[in-house]
Every structure is written in C-alpha cells, then in structure tokens.
C-alpha cells in the first residue's frame, strides 16, 4: 500500500485502537465507521488539515494506522472510497460479507 500524497477528494481512515474497527474522520474531527458520513477533502490543504486532526487523535492513543484514501461522491451525494482495497475495508471481507461488523453497521449493503 503506497501512501498517498494529500490531494483533493480524499478521506482519512484509520483503525480504532481499542476495537481495531475501520473508521473514517468526520468534519467534526470525530471518527465514524460509515464512510458516507466522512469528510471528503476539497483540496490538498484540506486533506493536510484533516490529517493533522487525525494525527492528534493518534497521539491521544485513539486510533492506529492513520492514512489518506482516495474517495468520490456517489449518486446519492455521499462520499465513498474509490479504491478496491478501501472498499473492502469499508464493507468487510468480500467472501464473508455476512460476518464483519460492517454488516451490522450497514446491513443493506
């Protein structure tokens, strides 16, 4: 996994330190398991600023593995990760979609 450089149309993702769950950074500087509620950056500077918030959270020992991911707006206007890998992180293992906690979070997907 090559680290992305800050750019527009990105999200910040990480894993919750306590549970390990995949989380995404919101505009309110909180973390959500639902990427549709995550902040989608508008510019490289915006991504940079969001990364800064995430780094503070990491320093407070709340999350691990903070990283930028590419994302875009879906038809319904909510953001979603665009790369395969991040799609899998958001939805759970492709071979056991029934089992991940993601299934509980987003049962309709």
């Amino acid at each position, binding site marked *: *996994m090559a680290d992305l450089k800050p750019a527009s149309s990105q999200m910040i993702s990480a*894993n919750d*330190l*306590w*549970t*390990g*769950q*995949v989380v995404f950074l919101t505009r309110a500087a909180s973390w959500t398991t639902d990427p549709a509620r995550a902040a989608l950056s508008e510019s490289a500077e915006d991504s940079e600023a969001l990364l800064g918030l995430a780094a503070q959270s*990491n*320093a*407070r*020992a709340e999350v*691990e*593995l903070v990283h930028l991911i590419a994302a875009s707006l879906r038809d319904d206007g909510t953001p979603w990760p665009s*790369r*395969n*890998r991040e799609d*899998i*992180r958001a939805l*759970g*293992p*492709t*071979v*056991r979609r029934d*089992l*991940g*906690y*993601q299934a509980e979070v987003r049962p309709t997907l």
Partner: protein
Amino acid sequence: MYRYDDYDQTLVNQRIADFRDAVARRLSGHLSEEEFKLIRQMNGVYLQLHAYMLRVAIPYGSLDSRQMHKLAHIARIYDKGYGHFTTRQNIQYNWPSLREMPDLLQELAAVQMHAIQTSGNLIRNVTADQYAGATAEEVDDPRPYAELIRQWSTLHPEFSFLPRKFKIAVTASATDRTAVKFHDIGLILHDDPEQGRGFEVIVGGGMGRTPFVGPSLRDHLPEAQILTYLEAVLRTYNELGRRDNAYKARIKILVHELGAEAFRTLVEDEFAKLLPQADDLPQAELLRIRERFIVPELDALPARDPGFDAAYEKDEDFRQWVKVNSAPHKVAGYIIANISLKPYGGIPGDISADQMDLVADLAERYGHDEIRATHAQNLVLPHVKLRDLYDIWQALSVAGLGTANLDRASDIIACPGLDYCVLANARSIPIAQEISKRFAAKGREDLVGELKIKISGCINACGHHHAGHIGILGVDRKGEEMYQLTLGGSGDEQASIGQITGRGFDEAGIVDAVDTVVETYLGHREDHETFLETYRRLGPAPFKEALYGTA
C-alpha cells in the same frame, strides 16, 4: 502432547501480565504506535484491514480436544464464530478487539496455549511433521526436539530483535510434509549408522520476494549439539543480517550474499567456540520433555477389520475418502485420517466453532485425544482405529468436513489476501473458491490426481505459491487485481521453485488459465505421471503455448 510444568505455565501467565501492561502503556500514550506494534506482534497480535487479528501458536501443530474446544469457545465469544488455520500450523482469529485481548490470552493459557512469537522479527512458532508419532516412516517423533527448541527460543534474551522473522521446521521422515527446505532453518532427523542420531541442517531457505531452496549447512549434527548450533547460526544472523531493507533482511539473503560456504565458516567458527563450554543439560532436558509427552497407548489390533472392510466395500463415497484422505499408521489396525478444511467452493483453512467442537469430540472419543494442524491448512486425527473410521467419516461428512480431496486440485492453500490482510495486493480466497468449484465435478479431480495449487495475495508468499505445482501470485496493477501464474514448484523433499509462465491474468482469466494448464497436463501425461512429473519431463513450453499461443 507435551504437558506444561509449573515453569512453562508461570512463564505464559507472566507474559500475559506483561502484555496487559503494554496495552495499558499504549493507551496512556507511553508507548508510541510504532513501539506498541512491535510488542503486540511479539504477542501474536496484528492489526489487519478490518480489525485486530490474533494468531495463536499451535506448537508443531499438536493439540488435544480440550484445547480444540477452547479454540471453539474463543471463536464464539471473542470472534465471529470461526477461525482460520494458517500455513504454519497456527490458527488465527480475524475479529477480536484489543480491549479483550489479554482476557482471551488468559483463556488460552488455561489450556496451555499462547500466542507468543507468532509474529514479529524473532524465532516463530516451530513447526513439525503432522504425522509425527504416527507414521512408520519416521526415525523418531520429532516433536520433543521441536519442544526443546520452542522453549529455548521463547523470550530469548539475545534473539528477540532479529533483522526479520525466523522460522524453524523439524521433520524426521523421508517424505517431507513440512516444506523443510523453505525454512530459515530446517532440521531433518536421522540415525546415521556410524555417527549416531543427528540432524541434517538446512539454512537459508525461504519464499517471499526472493525464494530459495535452502542449502545444507551440515550433513550431520549430533543431536546433543542442536541448541549450541542454533545459537551459532542465530548470533551470526543477528549480527550480520541486513537491517537496511526489510525485503533483504531474511537469513536467506545473508546466506546468498555471503555464499553458503562463507556463511558456514562463520557459523562453524562460532560453534567451535561455543562447543567446549556447551552444557549437556539439553540432553537431560530432552529426556524430561519426552517423559512429559503423552504418548497414546495404542491397542494390539488385527491388521484388518471386518466392519471397515464391509463399509469400504459398500459405500463408494467412504471408499473414495479413505483412498484420498488417509495414510498408513505405524501400528496395525490404526490409520491416520486427514480432515479437509477445503470443502468445494469453501474458504481454505476456515473452520466454524461447531466444527472445531466436533473435531475435538471425535479426537476424544476415537482418536486418543490427539489432533494435528497441517501447513496445508487441514487437520489430522493421527491415531484412529480402522474399525472406527466409518463412524468418524460419517460424523465429519454431516458437518461438512468429509471432503475427499487431500493433495488434490481443490486442496488449495490460500493466504487470507486482500479480504483480510493489510499487506495484500489482491484477493486469494475467491480465486481458490472458483478453482475449487471448477474442479468439484466428480471424477475430474480424481482423474488429475495429486496437484498442489497455492495462492498468495502478495509477494510475501504466505500462501507458498513458489512451492505450488501451480502457484498463483496476486499483484496490483494500477488498482486492479491481477494474478501471475507459476508452474513446477514443490515443497517436498525434492523442493523446487515454480517458474513464472508469462504475463498475468485477471480474476476470471486466472481460473481459466489453471484449467488450461491442467488440460495440457492431461493431454501430455504418460502412464500414471503426476502433474509435477509431467511438468518436469516436458518443461514449461507446452504449457506456455497452451496459455499464450505460439508467439
């Protein structure tokens, strides 16, 4: 089964207390993410794509029913009801939380299990032949040696921060079921008519980005000197192994860069220095360990059993399973039964909590309480009576564990890949599932015979693709999952590394490509040649032509 004494138990308990403390230090910010990563890995805890993953050690693949029931319990309480057997005879859980991890480890400790050194840059869990103690082929049971090494390598003061991970395998049979030549150190036990009992020592084998069949460093190492020799190898590696590039840090690179001869000289010099002051305690310890192994008391039975013969005659499916999934036992009237964790279209190595409980029950009732995990991600009941085999098979079949496909095309080794693994480039499991389904048509697989297909989701090669008769490597091509095909690898006593056929395939294409390769084999094979034999006779040309046409 080795039974812990108080020292073994105390150490495991103290290690858990230590880990609990490390978790607290991370939460309070006294350990950085990077520092904590190192510590959690030493305790078997990874952070994967979706969650933490715990890899539980099953030393040399041996466990009893109590332990298997506990693994089922953990799957239910701390995970999502299943576990995954790995290519190193371990089991991993995909969903535990860090919060519960110390308690989970405490539960394991209650049945003499742990997750110590199942990850990290140190000496990993020692593996051994899954037929140990049951096969007539072996010189002796290799597991007491493996246990001696397990203890020696556990929290080793000098060798816990190595350049990279370090894997040791021990076997004592002519037929190698451990991929012994693909390990950092591979030990082959033998009885030499003149020199007595000892090991052939292979050093510097491995998979990964640069696969090597390890060279033999010693034809004969007296058994009493094993720990001293390991110390010499490990010290040489700790001091000289590369630390500038993780991909060049394994001992195989050091051995390769120095040359096996020069490396041997370094090791032998160090060994010669250590030997005069070496203790004979390990020898006494080996005796003690042997005594603490529960050796099953097998009954004297006739070589044939009428009930078995009748079932074999009458039930075709049973007959097929016995032919494919069993192996001869050293004692008359007994048999080794392999339990496939590769149902057609299933996830290789995955097992539900209920299935674990069933295997545990069968082992307790029929199998002298012994279960083995194999590096091919299957299970074994090593000591069952012929007369019980039909009952066992029926129970397994009902639970989806009765697939007759050991070492067949659908007995695919696959790493977790991009469905779980943070390092992955591509998914492995769906490819395995599709290939397995394709071969599921009965008769076809039987026609093909022995065929080992191995799939890795990245160049780390946890799925042993280099050693697959047919190997598949997932790569990332601009965000697309692509798959490279290799042919002619083998992880047995005649180890070889598979050769890449040519350009890669996409998800659908790779399944067709495997099909094409197998059809080509069937078209060219002579008499009863296996795939590997045909490939070795013909080389890659006809396969390449079938895959890519004549260019």
